[in-house]
């Protein structure tokens, strides 16, 4: 049996916009540009011009930083063991602080999404470290972790455990731990917002179908938190790659160069070694790495969201 299909309607020719509409559109666009212009000028002057300036600086070297060296600074960076070391530990720092931070953020969000007494208070308390200046956090933890006079070892000794030299035996892990502690509240708030955006009917339907709490978590909660997870991971990786203040304050990049993260290395090259051209090249490389990682994360995230 065949079905007669109705002939397709001939394509309609695009109708010319009335002249009054084009004029209105141009007027609106002009108004929009006038409003945008101050922001554009501000952005170009204080953002793109310095970036361009930095690119020029990266191509210069010598004692006074004015000798044109082309790509030499970039070539040097790829062969500099200190730079390779700092980049490697920065990747470890980013991976550790972001992945563990996301896990703890989700866990806290799930707990504080329950109807528990005092949950508003707990949410507020967890957010305090994020709202505190990194300088204060650094000094606070430096004192807490001091092996001789720090409160943490005092507590351990009180319960009969030996004191630890946290900043000497596992300095990078300690810095990762402090980072997670300080950002857990913020991550929790983001995931909490994500959780509250998941319609309750999904859980009800799953429960009717016999899904237990774990199944509901892994099949509903986690997939529907994917956009938030993507956001947190991209922001977290960018922040981690740029991390400077915490190791600078807590360990000064030491012991040795164990916590000399990439941004700290750039700082040392610029302000200690007085090699501004080389430091500019290192900054440009960091920019490229951040852009590449962010694009990859966004693409992967988009694909995952599409599947969801």
């Amino acid at each position, binding site marked *: 049996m065949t079905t007669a299909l109705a002939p397709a309607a001939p394509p309609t020719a695009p109708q010319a916009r009335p002249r009054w509409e084009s004029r209105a559109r141009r007027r609106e666009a002009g108004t929009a540009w006038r409003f945008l212009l101050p922001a554009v000028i501000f952005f170009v002057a204080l953002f793109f011009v310095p970036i361009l300036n930095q690119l020029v600086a990266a191509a210069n070297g010598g004692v006074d930083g004015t000798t044109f060296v082309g790509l030499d600074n970039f070539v040097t960076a790829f062969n500099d063991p200190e730079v390779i070391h700092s980049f490697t530990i920065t990747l470890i720092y980013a991976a550790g602080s972001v992945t563990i931070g996301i896990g703890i953020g989700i866990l806290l969000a799930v707990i504080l999404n329950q109807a528990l007494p005092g949950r508003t208070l707990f949410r507020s308390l967890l957010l305090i470290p994020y709202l505190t200046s990194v300088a204060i956090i650094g000094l606070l933890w430096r004192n807490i972790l001091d092996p001789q*006079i720090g409160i943490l070892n005092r507590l351990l000794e009180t319960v009969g455990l030996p004191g630890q030299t946290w900043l*000497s035996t596992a300095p990078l892990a300690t810095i990762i731990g402090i980072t997670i502690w300080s950002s857990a509240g913020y991550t929790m708030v983001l995931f909490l917002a994500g959780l509250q955006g998941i319609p309750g009917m999904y859980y009800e339907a799953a429960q009717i179908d016999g899904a237990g709490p774990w199944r509901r978590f892994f099949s509903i909660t986690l997939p529907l938190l994917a*956009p938030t997870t993507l956001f947190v991971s991209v*922001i977290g990786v960018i922040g981690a790659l740029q991390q400077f203040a915490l190791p*600078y304050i807590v*360990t000064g990049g030491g012991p040795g160069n164990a916590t000399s993260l990439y941004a700290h290395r750039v700082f040392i090259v610029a302000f200690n070694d007085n090699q501004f051209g080389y430091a500019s090249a290192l900054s440009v490389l*960091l920019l490229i790495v951040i852009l590449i990682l962010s694009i990859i994360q966004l693409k992967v995230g988009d694909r995952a969201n599409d599947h969801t």
Partner: protein
Amino acid sequence: MFTPHQLNRRSFLRLGLGVSVLGAVGAGTACAPVTPQSSKGGANTFTIYWNAGHTYKAYEAVIDQFGKDHDLQINWQKFQWPDLTTKLVADFKSGNVPDLVEEVTAGTGTQYGIAGDVIAIDDLAKGDTGMKFPDDFIDAAVTARQYEGKTYSIPFHLTANGLLFYNKGLLADAGFATPPTTWEEFLEMTKATTKDKVTGTALNSDPSYSAPFYHQQGVAFSDVTKGEFLTPEASATKALQFMQDLIYAHRVSPAPVATTDYSGPQKLFSAKRAATFLSGPWDLGPVRQGSPDIDLGVAPPLKGSVQASAMAGAGLMIPTKAKNPDLSWELIGKLTALETEMAATKEAGMSMPRKSWAADPAVASDETLKVVATALSLIAKQDPELPASGKANQINELYKKAYQQIVIQQHPVDASLADFRTQAKAALS
């Protein structure tokens, strides 16, 4: 009708991420050079960069009076040393400089002076007979600031690292009536005083505190002309191995904590958790004020193969683009005048570079200052070529890495020093 593009949730997140990525890009622009402008502040503002630990009332009074005399608004900015250095380097790059700067240590001014960032003060000194420079200044403090006949800073404080601070009560309890004078005696004393929660000594994470130890083995930090570092090598190994053993073999010192703060040993000593520590006169004030109940003793530097101390102490330098170098020089004259030095010594126990200060009866009769004077006479010679090479900071940073690896991470001494020498030579070349 024109319909503006609507932001949905996903595009909003994208926008947020985009802004964040661009923010990250912007954060990397800190190293870009900027166009030199003018000197810091208005014509009537006089800007001073100072170490936060040196804000003595004696200096405050002089600076206040100087501002009143010249109808100047004084912008006295205080920093920790690393922050002062960072700010100053950025200022030199921008051309927006202060009028007077405290120099972290001898040689720093030379490094900046050769690069054209601070002036040689010889002509100013020649025209100021009242200053008595360099005749009234201890030679070692002056020559350490000179290169090829030019002087790039004025000695302000002259101190020696390597004084032995000891708790007389704890030493007496362990059966020591007098402080140790040699490494062997020092080790014996630290073993005897290490008990319960008290350690015999406390080493510093700051690498400059290792200088007395290697100088006491006759080691020179650098010989730039020959391209050598920490030589004789065997003696350098012996010195650093001794320090490492104090922590890990003899367990008479806690492992230092890697921080930017050098006051850890002093705090342990003040808390009666360490019987001794090695430092300089700058820790006299904090110990006396922080723990007046401690019966403090200060002994001359120890003797390894030789008895030696390491030079320390700040200077004063004038940036090339300072608004009025004559005015800056006038303030230097007032700050380094004998009466100001005496007032600062009385207030904080700081030792000074003027020969007339050392000869003053109030100084000569003070038991602690006598010990400081002994330490000053034992200062090991510095290599003037290192700051002149422009690589002193870079090489010091490399040594910091090696030193912390040795005393904090317990890396093999020979390997760490060999690595340091290789990297330092590469930095020089």
